């Protein structure tokens, strides 16, 4: 088959009229900004500070696009910061910060658990909750239809949600896509998997582990260390059957968008989906049931880092740009366009210690090379 290239499929989002209106507004804004800059000179608006300090930040890759946005850089410069970022898996940030001891001002991981880990490893207490983003599963319409026919997905309050417990069962039962009664053509004999990043390296994978742990523990309360061996066995197939996993959320998401290979389900941040302008045609988004939301905190190691964290937490201009990039600023009721609040229960993630132990036990199981214990 293979010799017949398929055209690249792309779909814009939103009506063209709206785009035109926004376009005109932007032109006006740019012209006004251009005019104002002729009077205020090099440093931009007159309310900007004069002293600019460099900030070296280790960030989760899902936030890379935000910090690469020239509007964000301009606003940060106005607030007194030039930011140099490097991205790393949230669970690798403590190691990166130690490697470059004294040269890193902040780490900016994607969950409370990852933040707690960095705070304890680097012995710092200063953190600033900046924004949140619920975890979503990106997919395509045919896959969602197949899952709905299988009763693994349903629509709750107008939002498509997928029962994570069913996905765990389907993966553990070695199902292929063609095994699903609802699969449109029944010819996809590849394995049914939910792709994620490596939970031992990256925060989005860790969020899947946290969520799956709560689901398989069958308990609404906090997961206890005593439950870890049993949970590790039960969630093991979710991670083993995927094979090698990326260590950055951005790489997984880009792989899904890029369509070089077919990824039918991928566990990513809602913000990544909302901010992407080149979504594949027929794309779909599912919210897991139960749900989990990621909270992104700046952990400051230096004074400059503390001021930087404070600015991200409180500046209105930066918050508006967060919304533009699909994030939900903390303490701000505004929502990014397309964000939905589902009616599903949100879980409380297990503690970092529990998640680390789960990761260790899963790694031990995977290292053996014979899949997961029955």
């Amino acid at each position, binding site marked *: *088959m*293979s*010799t017949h*290239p*398929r055209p*690249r499929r*792309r779909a*814009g989002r939103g009506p*063209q009229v709206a*785009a*035109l209106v926004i*376009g005109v507004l*932007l*032109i006006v804004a*740019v*012209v006004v900004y*251009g005019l104002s*800059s002729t009077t205020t*000179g*090099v440093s931009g608006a007159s309310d900007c500070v004069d002293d600019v300090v460099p900030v070296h930040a280790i960030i989760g890759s899902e936030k890379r*696009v935000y910090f*690469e946005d*020239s509007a964000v850089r301009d606003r940060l410069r106005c607030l007194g910061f030039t930011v140099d970022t*490097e*991205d790393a898996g949230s669970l690798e940030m403590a190691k*990166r910060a130690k*490697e*470059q001891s004294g*040269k890193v001002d902040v780490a900016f991981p994607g969950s409370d658990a990852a933040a707690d880990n960095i705070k304890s490893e680097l012995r710092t207490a200063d953190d600033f909750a900046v924004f949140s983003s619920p975890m979503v599963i990106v997919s395509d319409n045919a896959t969602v239809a197949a899952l709905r026919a299988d009763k693994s997905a349903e629509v709750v309050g107008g939002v498509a949600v997928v029962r994570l417990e069913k996905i765990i069962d389907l993966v553990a039962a*070695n199902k*292929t896509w063609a095994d699903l009664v609802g699969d449109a053509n029944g010819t*996809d*004999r*590849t*394995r049914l*998997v939910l792709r994620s990043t490596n939970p031992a390296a990256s925060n989005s994978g860790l969020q899947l582990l946290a969520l799956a742990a709560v689901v398989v523990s069958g308990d609404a309360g906090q997961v206890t260390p005593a439950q870890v061996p049993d949970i590790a066995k039960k969630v093991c197939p979710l*991670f*083993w*059957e*995927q*094979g*090698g*996993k*990326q*260590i950055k959320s951005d*790489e997984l998401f*880009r792989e899904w*968008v*890029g*369509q*070089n*290979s*077919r990824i039918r389900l991928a566990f990513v941040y809602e913000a990544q989906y909302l901010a992407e*302008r*080149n979504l594949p045609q027929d794309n779909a988004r599912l919210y897991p049931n139960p749900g989990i939301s990621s909270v992104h905190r700046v952990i400051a190691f230096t004074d400059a880092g503390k001021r930087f964290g404070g600015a991200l937490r409180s500046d209105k201009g930066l918050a508006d740009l967060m919304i533009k990039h699909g994030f939900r600023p903390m303490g701000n009721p505004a929502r990014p366009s397309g964000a939905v609040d589902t009616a599903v229960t949100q879980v409380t993630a297990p503690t970092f210690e529990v998640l680390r132990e789960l990761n260790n036990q899963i790694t031990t199981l*995977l*290292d053996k*090379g*014979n*899949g997961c214990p029955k």
Partner: protein
Amino acid sequence: MSEVKHRALTIALLLSLAACTTQPTQPTPSRQPVTVTPGPATTLKVLAGSELQGMTGVLDRARAATGVTVEPTFTGSLDGVQQVAAGAAYDAAWFSSSNYLRTYPGTRDRLSTSEQIMTSPVVLGLRAAKAKELGWDSRPVSWQDITEAARQNRFTFAMTDPNKSNSGFSALLAITSAVDGAKRALTKDAIAGVAPQVSTFFSVERLTATSSEWLTDAFVARDKEPAGTKVDGLVNYEASLLALNRDKRLGEPLTLVYPTDGVVMGDYPLTLLDSASPTARDAYKRLVEYLRLPQVQQEIVAETLHRSVLPDVPRADAMPADLAQIPFPDSWAVVEALLHAYNDHLRRPSRVVYVLDVSGSMGEDPTRIAGLKKALHDLTGTSTTLSGEFCGFHKREEIVFLPFSSRPGKPETFTIDESDPERSLARVRRAIDALTPAGNTAIYDSLMVAHELAKPTPDRFTSIVLMTDGVRTDGAEVPDYLKFVAERAKGTTAQVFPVLFADSADQEMKQVADATGGTFIDGRSGLSEAFCKIRGYQ
């Protein structure tokens, strides 16, 4: 920002907005920065896969734009893992797959940050006429179909050694997983169950090499051979196969076959090593930033025919989307088990004739004969290094020792028993210990005998290793030998792999390698390593 620049930016923004409103279906411009701030001239020492040799143009421009010179040292994937685990002094590693460094227990802590630069799936390229004959140019093809065609001897192919190179390993993994039904990510225990079918596939393998680059060149070199002996296709990266077509290096183009049950994708992560200095870290960051620029990604697609990691950079025309992907096992234990299974049970076994110089000079300097014995002993399983573990003699393999001095000695053949390899290996070790130097050096008389012992057969790879420490002093001379080779029927001459050692006549050794389609290996910095390296061509 200067005022002039600011104005320019404003105009550019206006223009791009205008473009958006008139052409709403065009891909939106990328969000990436458009330039990289150049930094101080820095050399980045990078341990790299051989397939990255095609990146030279891109890396030259990267140097101009960023001040970063990439100094590559090319090696195989498995050897790379071993070097990183041993703490070799490189700043970064850049191989076609992240999976070896990620799963090998000894390397995990040595890796710093990593960035995927491009992708390319490992697929089968078949000569167009052969693909048409098999009907593979016009309908979906599965690994089962490919195995069935192999069972009927309907095609032959070339593939790199999975012990040395990721493209070979990827194919081995894909076919093993697919035959296993892709019902689960491949496990150690599943391998034995699918061995009969997988070995059927490898029964039609006719050419192998340690690296994708060398394999491609050897495949091209054989393009002029008659239909009966030339190889029908090769397993390689899509990028390499498409480049062969684009550059018209073959008499007829290759048809690329993407098996429907899945392919393994190369993801080319540029990985900073933990030990990199702050200067190297800074250079790495600039280089990665540059390589991810949309226009650079477009150049990578256009020049090297890899796929971009940026979704808004389009694929080249001939690249299909939505490929089914075979999961790469998240466990080194599976990698190891699959390689052992390949070596001992799945691969087409080899017959190697070792033409060994035991002339007087090998004994006059006792370190020479001792070095030779040690190198051969290492192949009997006494080596403890990672690549040593995989380059020893395999089950089912035939080894012929042909010692020579003033004339060819008596050849001695050993077959490594599949159920009791140790007994066979003990015999090999005794023969090694019995090697005794004396007399002159009749290199070419001995090589001619070796060719009789290494006549190609359908069921084995045959090759000759020539190891000598000096120049010919007896019997036929190099022109006699070249005439002997030229007069043999095409496709009936085994490749010769000479090992350069001590006072060997390097120019003559190169002539021998070239005449037979082999390659020479430098053994002066380590005979064991050289013998191990040659194993990738056998």
